[in-house]
């Protein structure tokens, strides 16, 4: 095998944990990146990070009830994040307040509650750190979980595509014709929480949110429509996963940050050289125009 091929493929051939990490990253991209695109278009880009903190009270409750039991804390975390997401969604629909403010308010309440609950036990355990895994340590159960969530996500997004798009850009119209705007909105939030929480546990918060938002933010500089953005962001996420893992392998760097930084590199390249509104591209193309 040539040197290039062996350094690109070798690590994946030799080590099962590398293969798993690659598959996990791919599955994560498939599930999270399309949702990231919708979040970007709805100006909800910071929600992912908020969700990472919203899991705390649930995990703390699980810890208080069942000790250091990972299943209990994970379930609690999921329930807490879902409660925050649905409550924020409800506030957004029932009042004039916009989504960014309602999410911010509710995740902060959840975080403070979580800190309070943890302090009741008296110990200084970093629960969130315990709850969140690493891409190098993905076991069969975690892999299955991400894959299942990704499949359900794709299926649900396809099902709800039209009402979701309408609800995103003209909710008034959808309401006036009696369309399922509220349902589409809630489905989006449920998918968001399901993807994020399962990804947190398997891969850690940095990778989960990073792979959800960065490829989506980058894809916007190449394609316009939502389906095209979703497809491209999945591709960017998967490619970044592979490249990041290889970088972590050959250059001795921690894997999670590596993968996210490769995504970040893709984002910067897109901002500068993207064919659709890239900074450098625009400057280069601004030379001539048509007569009509």
């Amino acid at each position, binding site marked *: 095998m040539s040197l290039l091929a062996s350094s690109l493929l070798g*690590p994946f051939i*030799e*080590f*099962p*944990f*590398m293969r798993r*990490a690659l598959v996990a990253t791919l599955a994560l991209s498939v599930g999270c990146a399309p949702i990231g695109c919708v979040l970007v278009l709805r100006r909800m880009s910071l929600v992912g990070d908020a969700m990472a903190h919203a899991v705390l009270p649930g995990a703390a409750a699980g810890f208080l009830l069942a000790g250091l039991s990972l299943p209990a804390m994970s379930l609690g975390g999921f329930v807490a994040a879902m409660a925050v997401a649905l409550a924020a969604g409800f506030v957004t629909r029932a009042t004039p307040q916009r989504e960014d403010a309602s999410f911010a308010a509710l995740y902060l309440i959840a975080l403070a509650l979580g800190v309070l609950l943890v302090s009741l036990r008296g110990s200084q355990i970093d629960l969130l*750190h315990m709850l969140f*895994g*690493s891409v*190098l*340590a*993905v*076991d069969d159960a975690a892999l299955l979980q991400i894959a299942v969530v990704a499949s359900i996500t794709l299926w649900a997004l396809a099902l709800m595509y039209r009402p979701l798009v309408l609800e995103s850009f003209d909710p008034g119209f959808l309401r006036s014709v009696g369309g399922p705007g509220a349902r589409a909105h809630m489905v989006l939030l449920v998918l968001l929480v399901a993807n994020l929480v399962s990804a947190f546990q398997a891969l850690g918060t940095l990778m989960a949110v990073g792979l959800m938002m960065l490829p989506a933010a980058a894809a916007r500089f190449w394609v316009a429509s939502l389906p095209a953005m979703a497809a491209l962001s999945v591709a960017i996420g998967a490619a970044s996963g592979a490249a990041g*893992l290889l970088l*972590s*392998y*050959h*250059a*001795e*760097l*921690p*894997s*999670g*940050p*590596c993968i996210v930084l490769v995504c970040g590199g893709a984002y910067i390249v897109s901002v500068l050289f993207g064919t659709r509104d890239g900074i450098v591209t625009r400057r280069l193309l601004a030379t001539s125009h048509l007569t009509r």
Partner: protein
Amino acid sequence: MSVNRRKILCIGSAALPALHALTARAQTPAPRIVASFSILADMAQELAPAGAQVTALVGPDADAHVYEPSPADAKRLAQADLVMINGLGFEGWIERMVKVSGYRGTVVVASNGIQPRSGGHHGDDPHAWQDLALARRYAGNISAAFAQRWPQQRNEIARCNADYVARVDSLDRQVREWLGAVPRAQRRVITSHDAFGYFGAAYGVDFLAPQGWNTHSEPSAAAVARLIRQIKTQGVRAIFMENISDRRLVERIASEGGVRIGGTLYSDALSKPGGPAATYLRLMEHNARSLATALQA
């Protein structure tokens, strides 16, 4: 005779002269002994005359390398009747402390007379207590120092020493038996502790360090790959890596390397009271048992 009975006898046989001392003249205060760390303190407690108060500067579950002396510690040193240290470079900070505290008495070096192993880049390897045979030396040095300081109780001290050494020897035989059940070639483990050189030499176990593993919170893929490769190529049978905080990562490495995950090994400090290594003898027993269990296929 059972251990407790011996202890009672040891203490009981000291009671008479103590009673005599009490009735005969004005009360002398209980001996105050300060040891540098918990393992030494435990040994001293076993070997000391009745009523002695033994304290450790670096307590159970604490790390001697990051120890920060406090004013209370200095006071304890100043008021001590006897101070004992491990030696062999284990306590770099003790001489300064002793000088500052104003303690004028003897500083007993428990490892006196032991031929040290080389500790790599640290100079000598100070963890001599990991070999039970050398622990007899420790006991001897400690008891001799006690007898010199409190000559009226030398008989009691000698009895305690004999009793303790008998227990040490018994445990030594037990450990050899446990580990002997595992073929020599299979006695290879990886552990991040750097402290088991004497144990390895005495009982025929290879303790390997994880190659190129920095204890950062998030490892690189290269580090994980290297560890797995090392496990496979060096025929390692078990890993003891408590310093990796992600339990799942340890499981993944063990699963891919085909090794078992051992429990916790105690190297430099006792566990808290109630824990599996609350005394020196229990610490050695726990380590040996954990190793033997992990190494048996």
